[in-house]
């Protein structure tokens, strides 16, 4: 089976053809937003964790390299810790156009915005000439996420997404899952899927490291939300055992590292992988986008309604009440499986078809609304050092 995608100079295939305007600090954010304003197919994102957050540079680089992005304009204040030049050097290796505007060098924000809009206009004209072409599914990289979870996620939406994940792996695609906290309690199941002993150890460490980060004596940090508990989820183990269902049953080939200098990427690997990172929705999706994922498939019981700047997000709900109330915001109804009216396999096949359609250009519900969330996770080397995880 083929999908219709955009091939890049480095042979990676995107499912969207966007121009990315990336602010490397909050100072540059308003200018970046105004550069992008009013242009169709241009998305503006910001590194918003303070101007010295150099830990975010590998994620920003990965996001800019994502094959859904045709060209990149970096907007820099000029004095921030996140330096644009190394990001540009990495991104230009993919062959895509990458340009830089530095506000302090150009002079004023008004001049920067005018100059930036001229660059974006040129990038749009060039990107507009590129047409979709047929590619087999081995060119696709899919990220899995759940959020606003309730017990229907573990019974209907996630197992159905798991069927889709297995079908994609069988077709040669790469599938990626993050959120290590939601594997606590599911160690046996996940490690039993490891391809070898080394991967098994990596999976166990991926989970036990995360458990250490969340069980620090004296600290009291919430890890489940009101919606989880209102939705019937009683413990983290129950949430985890439901969450891992979306990963299907194929062998786990590895745990992708988020190194301090670069993120390991998934396109072209083929098969099922886990990724270091967080479970927090938008930063987790940003991590997967930085690892090269094209499309996110998202299970939500309560009705999570975000989109993402880089990847289309396909929302799947297993909750019949959520579907009845929010179907305008949901892409796939899995509540039929919850109610015993349709098999999990049948719902999984519908999700598979939806992924192929979205990969070929069909807009998701969040894209129709123009939602383009973006957020980053700040890897904290102080916590890692204190816990002996470095």
């Amino acid at each position, binding site marked *: 089976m083929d999908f219709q995608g955009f091939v890049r100079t480095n042979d990676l295939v995107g499912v969207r053809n966007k121009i990315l305007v990336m602010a490397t600090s909050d100072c540059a954010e308003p200018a970046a937003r105004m550069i992008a304003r009013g242009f169709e197919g241009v998305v503006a994102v910001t590194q918003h964790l303070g101007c010295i957050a150099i830990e975010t540079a590998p994620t920003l680089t990965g996001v800019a390299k994502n094959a859904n992005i045709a060209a990149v304009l970096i907007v820099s204040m000029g004095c921030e810790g996140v330096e644009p030049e190394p990001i540009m050097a990495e991104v230009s290796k993919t062959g895509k156009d990458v340009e830089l505007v530095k506000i302090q060098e150009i002079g004023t924000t008004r001049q920067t915005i005018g100059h930036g809009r001229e660059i974006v206009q040129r990038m749009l004209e060039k990107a507009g000439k590129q047409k979709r072409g047929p590619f087999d599914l081995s060119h696709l990289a899919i990220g899995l996420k759940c959020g606003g979870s*309730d*017990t*229907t996620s*573990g*019974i209907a939406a996630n197992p159905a997404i798991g069927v889709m994940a297995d079908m994609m792996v069988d077709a040669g695609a790469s599938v990626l899952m993050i959120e290590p906290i939601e594997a*606590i*309690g*599911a160690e*046996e*199941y996940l490690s039993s899927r490891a391809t070898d002993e080394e991967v098994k150890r990596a999976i166990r460490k991926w989970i036990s490291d995360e*458990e250490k980060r*969340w*069980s620090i004596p004296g600290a*009291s*940090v*919430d*890890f*489940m939300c*009101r919606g989880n*508990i*209102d*939705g*019937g989820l*009683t*413990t*983290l*183990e*129950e949430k985890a*055992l*439901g969450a891992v269902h979306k990963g299907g049953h194929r062998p786990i080939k590895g745990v992708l590292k988020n190194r301090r200098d670069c993120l390991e990427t998934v396109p072209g690997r083929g098969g099922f992988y886990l990724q270091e990172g967080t479970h927090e929705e938008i930063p987790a999706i940003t991590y997967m986008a930085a690892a090269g994922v094209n499309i996110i498939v998202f299970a939500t*019981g309560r009705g999570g309604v975000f989109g993402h700047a880089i990847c289309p997000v396909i929302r799947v709900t297993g*909750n*019949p*009440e959520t579907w009845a109330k929010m179907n305008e915001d949901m892409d796939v109804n899995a509540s039929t499986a*919850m*109610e*015993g009216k349709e098999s999990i396999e049948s719902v999984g096949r519908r999700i598979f078809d939806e992924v192929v359609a979205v990969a070929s250009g069909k807009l998701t519900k969040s894209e129709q609304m123009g939602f383009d969330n973006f957020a980053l996770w700040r890897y904290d080397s102080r916590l890692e050092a204190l816990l002996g995880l470095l």
Partner: protein
Amino acid sequence: MKKAIMIDDKDNVATAIVAIDIGDEVEVISSRQEVVCCIKAKDSLPLGHKIAISDIKKGAEVKKYGTAIGKAAKNITSGEYVHIHNVQSNRLPLTKHMLSYK
């Protein structure tokens, strides 16, 4: 009849697929849609919440997906509502703030 799903044969809780009222007769079905048993609900519970399908002694494992999702914080009898008021995690206990959600 109102239904609840027992996901694995080893489970001692089932998940309600519709809201259940106290006194309801509840048909417990397997994930293969076979009827496992019928129980009388001793509490009301919302869609997606859990009902005990056998007695669970304090300290014993509460099982869903064929795996422990925690342990009983008090004696639970068949037909009772099972949630954060009578189950504790074996891994990360809920914070005081999270417990206040109920």
